């Protein structure tokens, strides 16, 4: 037992519901938007100035997938320790509420909203992480809940409380 890589990481026992992490700030530049869009979302309003001006959004806007990728990056970077993650299971209720325009500065919080032991896998717990990504005007641009597996440090303890 015991994974030498994750032994000092944050385990299930180290987390609590209500725990909130500030995600810091990321400026989403035009170059970042175009680079990401050329790889994953080459729609005109992400890469072409003229087309972007004429679109519903009125200017170069980031792909929603880029906002999500940056959100995950900021969460990993700003968590007070490395999570002993055993992989993501699902993402629910993802909403792209507003476009992220070139040079917007995004930040926000991630909050632990659920922690429970996995019934059939004593070595794992389930953690729900609620992302609330905001722009520099404090407007919500994206929300989502990431349901992730996390290693339990002492699998033999506390299974009776699993629900």
């Amino acid at each position, binding site marked *: 037992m015991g994974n030498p890589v994750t032994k000092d990481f944050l385990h299930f026992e180290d987390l609590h519901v209500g725990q909130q992490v500030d995600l810091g700030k990321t400026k989403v530049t035009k170059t970042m938007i175009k680079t990401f869009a050329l790889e994953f979302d080459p729609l005109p309003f992400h890469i072409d100035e003229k087309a972007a001006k004429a679109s519903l959004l009125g200017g170069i806007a980031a792909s929603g997938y880029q906002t999500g990728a940056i959100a995950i990056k900021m969460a990993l970077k700003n968590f007070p320790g490395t999570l002993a993650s055993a992989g*993501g299971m699902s993402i629910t*209720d993802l909403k792209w509420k507003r*476009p992220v325009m070139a040079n917007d500065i995004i930040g926000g919080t991630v909050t632990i909203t659920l922690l429970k032991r996995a019934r059939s896998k004593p070595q794992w717990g389930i953690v729900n992480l609620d992302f609330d990504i905001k722009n520099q005007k404090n407007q919500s641009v994206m929300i989502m809940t990431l349901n992730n597996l996390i290693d339990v440090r002492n699998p033999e303890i506390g299974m009776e409380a699993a629900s």
Partner: protein
Amino acid sequence: MTMWFEDINDDDSMELGQYCFTQEEIIKYNKEYDNQYFHTDPELAKHSHFGGIIASGWHTACVGHRLMVDEIKSREEAMVAEGMIPGVSGPSPGIKKMTFMQAVRPEDCISYKLTVTSKRASASLPGWGLLFSTIIATNQKGEQVFQSDVASFSKMRDFKPTLKQRFAMWAVKIPLFKRLIKR
């Protein structure tokens, strides 16, 4: 979808194509966006329950989106070449659920398929409809690795706005009104 909102039916589907993930690309994406040891370090990843490096679920989603954009683009070009006017797709307001069923590993070839599950007129954007679709991704062994239940805007071809809607659509173009409406 390259059709107009009115012409799209439940169960309409579109093969989005296949993509083979390389270890190099998986590492490159994850070093930038999902820097966890089982995503970035082939040696350390052996200690994880995955037993090796795997792609980020979000990367799998991004690749599916890219394939969808490409497929729509090529269908649109084909329609234009035949003298037809393709429908207009808009941005996505969100994803109800995205599930990562199986790990995607280096050299896995993933096929994506989109199926429309339902549609309705948008309540917030006159002249636009909302399409609800499911994207399912399958690996070379036929195992389902990923599913995404995504919503997207689709423009109506035959939309005749009411007087009130016409005023609202006109007003939204003027910054002062836009500000008032957003309140």
